[in-house]
């Protein structure tokens, strides 16, 4: 399927032009970032944990086939059914088949970025199955027919008044209500009914353990657990990179995940599933590739498979905070999304690696030490290599390179530039064609360059 070309600067403009909203969004996410910092400061061995987590993940990715086989063997021995999906369509097919086998009409689903990636909801709804996203943020965006704008805080772009409007329309809350407690209470009642009516529960997987054949789901709301403790069928969907080798490794990751994601020491519920609930219940685990094994083949970008989907990179990214998650037009936005999306479709997502000032903060917060800003720079080289840089930009870079190879050309160009800036009328230098000058003044041209000064004052 050919995706439209995502023009991040244009999409960002639409968000930023609303000053007040953009500032509010920025402050909200910075607040989450500050909470993360506070928590990290309480763990003296924080940087050590990051190194260990990174090493565990690097090792796992290198030996992924072996660990997947081990996981499958152990999970099957516990009574779970393992399914393998090469791509998104196959994943959806597998889930649909399981649901059809049980004659399911209603499912409840907790947060799973993988199912978002595969577009599961659309597929199920097209087949007449009612899908309820039970995470509060996800339910809000579902009712509003939007997509999540953040992988951990799906509704971070929505104001409480807007939630109030949505709930008034769909849940019958009071018109104009915006108190988060009141609205959450309404959602609680509404979703209780859905949990009780759910015929199958679908969850994501935070960590799958090769050694034991089990997996872990972390939530604050309790929606995943409610969703799967009532029906008899639990379908867990996971990307193959979510594997970790040993049960004890969970200690490292559970210490890093919530602190990085929301600035909490741990999520309210950290549930460990090993096999189905009882002999009458079923546990299905769908292992999804969808480009991951191919990404593993890339030396440059392989480390992106470390990602534990904590969202810390988004919270710290000054570009994400000001342009909003939707400006990326990708399931996973922000720095990690700008590395992953071009692997899927370089042409469509070619503007994403450039939606970055290379500040490096993302790499510093990543709990599994993905060198995100270096990978974004590497993507730029890849895109140029694929001929995806615009002709104008390529030309100006060639021109610049030429100038820098010949000092005479460089100094002449500089002199012309300085003179031009001094004498040219303002409309010529400061106009909409010159993107610098939309918001900024150009520098005041000095009387002489440094090398001219040096010749006069120091040489000889």
């Amino acid at each position: 399927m050919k995706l439209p070309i995502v023009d991040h600067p244009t999409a960002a403009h639409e968000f930023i032009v609303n000053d007040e909203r953009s500032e509010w969004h920025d402050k909200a996410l910075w607040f989450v970032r500050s909470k993360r910092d506070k928590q990290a400061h309480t763990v003296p061995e924080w940087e050590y944990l990051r190194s260990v987590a990174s090493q565990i993940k690097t090792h796992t990715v290198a030996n992924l086939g072996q660990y997947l086989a081990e996981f499958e063997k152990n999970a099957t021995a516990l009574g779970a059914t393992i399914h393998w999906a090469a791509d998104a369509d196959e994943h959806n097919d597998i889930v649909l088949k399981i649901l059809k086998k049980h004659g399911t009409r209603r499912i409840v689903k907790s947060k799973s970025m993988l199912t978002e990636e595969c577009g599961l909801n659309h597929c199920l709804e097209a087949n007449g199955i009612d899908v309820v996203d039970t995470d509060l943020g996800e339910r809000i965006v579902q009712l509003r027919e939007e997509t999540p704008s953040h992988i951990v805080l799906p509704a971070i772009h929505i104001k409480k008044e807007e939630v109030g409007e949505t709930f008034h329309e769909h849940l019958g809350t009071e018109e104009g209500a915006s108190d988060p407690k009141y609205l959450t209470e309404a959602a609680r009642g509404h979703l209780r009914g859905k949990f009780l009516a759910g015929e199958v529960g679908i969850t994501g997987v935070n960590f799958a353990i090769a050694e034991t054949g089990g997996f872990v789901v972390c939530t604050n709301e309790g929606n995943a657990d409610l969703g799967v403790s009532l029906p008899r069928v639990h379908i867990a969907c996971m990307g193959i990179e979510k594997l970790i080798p040993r049960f004890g490794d969970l200690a490292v990751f559970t210490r890093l995940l919530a602190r990085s994601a929301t600035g909490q020491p741990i999520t309210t519920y950290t549930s460990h599933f090993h096999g189905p609930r009882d002999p009458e219940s079923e546990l299905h685990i769908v292992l999804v590739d969808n480009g991951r094994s191919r990404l593993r083949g890339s030396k440059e970008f392989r480390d992106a498979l470390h990602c534990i989907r904590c969202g810390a990179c988004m919270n710290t990214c000054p570009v994400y905070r000001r342009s909003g998650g939707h400006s990326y037009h990708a399931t996973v936005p922000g720095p990690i999304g700008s590395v992953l999306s071009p692997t899927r479709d370089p042409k469509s997502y070619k503007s994403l690696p450039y939606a970055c000032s290379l500040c490096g903060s993302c790499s510093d917060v990543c709990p599994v030490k993905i060198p995100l800003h270096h990978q974004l720079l590497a993507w730029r080289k890849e895109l140029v290599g694929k001929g995806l840089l615009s002709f104008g930009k390529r030309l100006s870079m060639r021109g610049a390179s030429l100038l820098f190879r010949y000092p005479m050309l460089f100094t002449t160009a500089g002199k012309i530039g300085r003179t031009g800036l001094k004498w040219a009328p303002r409309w010529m230098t400061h106009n909409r064609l010159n993107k610098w000058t939309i918001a900024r003044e150009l520098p005041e041209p000095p009387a002489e360059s440094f090398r001219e000064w040096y010749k006069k004052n120091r040489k000889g």
Partner: protein
Amino acid sequence: MPPARSNGIVYLRGQRSPASDYHARRVQEKFSSGGRNFVGIIRISLETAVSVFRSMSCAGFIALHRVGFSAVCRLYCLNAHFARFIQLVRMTVALFVPCYLDQFYPDVPIATLELLERLGVEVVYPEGQTCCGQPMANTGCNSETEPVAKRFVEMFADYETIVCPSGSCTAMVRQHYGDYFADDDPAYNHVRDRTFDLCEYLHDELQVSELDVQFPHRVSLHKSCHGLRELRMASCSESMTPRVDKVRSILDLVGGIQWCQPERDDECCGFGGTFAVNEPDVSAAMGRDRVQDHIQSGSEVLASADMSCLMHLQGLIRREKRPIQVMHVAQILVGRPVYNAAETH
């Protein structure tokens, strides 16, 4: 792979640091072609002596370790002091002036030059220099960057130390030149190991402990991303690893500064090179937020070790007529009066 610094690292028997090896050879080439003047000859003689001495000190260390560890320590300490003495006696640095500073902000390299001279350093300005290649590299245009990077290394390879009043250009040379050279290329290794940001040089190499300068103004420091996260010149708020703040340490030697602290200590200013024009809205929004943060801290001078950040912030300040000035750290360190950094004298 050679380590980032050649100072104080022990080599295995028979192995010499590629950097000192290369430098020794270049000095010999120069000497045989004849120094042009008296100063040149003295310089070359001293450089040769140092290079030979450095090579010897490693082999000497290994040979003498049998004599006894304490004897060796004493000897090594003496060696270190002597090497330092030689270094102090003949401090010469090559000034690397980023392209946009040369053409648009000459006062920054002028201030850098004046500062180094005041500290007893002989400064040389290799005139054929133009640019480190960062604009092309950051756009992903490696083939356009390569000739520029090669030219840079060729130009600066002859100098023992290279100092640059910009964190981002220094980071380019130290961390992003690897694509264009073989791992064991001695000229590249030497240039990479011996290029410093100005504040790094002042703090780590010169170890400046006092400055006779007054700057009685309210100052806030903008921590440029490259200096912070590539060169690690200070701690950053998201990392739990404490690091010495080299820029601040040097500025603390200036009398009279009243420090103001913005709320967000190290958020990016939004320049990002071509990012400023590729994503103009986000870039401007980021810059405005920084300016406002510094203003609300009570500051009158927004200082930074990187003029590229300041160029962007200054552009916004002047357009919106905000009540704050920008100044490069070098300008503060030579006690320039507070004025718009674009003006030259």
